[in-house]
């Protein structure tokens, strides 16, 4: 699954640690999601969507659709 977390984070000039703090996860988890090595759960995806004021589909894209 692809995602725009890194871009959205960079737009706000946030570090991975800051984003991790906002999402209440570890920095390693943010890093793994950004690199596409780990797909977040639906609750965490919703949390990220709420944080950035976007829909889940605006942040996360299924590989099969791209």
């Amino acid at each position, binding site marked *: 699954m692809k995602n725009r977390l890194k871009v959205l984070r960079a737009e706000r000039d946030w570090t991975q640690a800051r984003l991790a*703090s906002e999402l209440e996860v*570890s920095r390693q988890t943010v890093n793994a999601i950004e690199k596409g090595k780990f797909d977040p759960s639906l609750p965490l995806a919703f949390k990220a969507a709420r944080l950035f004021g976007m829909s889940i589909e605006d942040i996360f894209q299924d590989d099969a659709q791209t």
Partner: protein
Amino acid sequence: MNDSNTDCGGFAARNKKNTLRLGYWTGAWLITMAIAVFGPILLWQDKVLTGAAIVINVAVGIGMIVANKRHLEGLDELQQKIQLEAMALALGVGLVFGLGYSTMDVTNLISADAEISHLVMLIGLTYGAGVIIGRRKYQ
């Protein structure tokens, strides 16, 4: 909320607290285990005292199990996944190699008795290796 570049605010603090609590319980369990094992050899020859030491060791062990459960529940989803994979590996290796080791003892393929401590060490080392592999995998 902490805006530091190096930590993750409340999550990191909670995790640290849970890890420390688990460390204290594990340390206490090890100490009570040492007392229960070495006490009858070095300090007393009373069966009641030995029984009490074992009961205390098991009680502290239950506390350690609860602390471990809380520690795992406090982790985020990736950390829990890493722990799950490491524990699955440790359980599988412990079961397969532990029973193989025991069978070698039962069938007298090895001259020495199979020791449970060897199995505990194998499980511990496999679990540690599993955590390291998991962390590298998701780096």
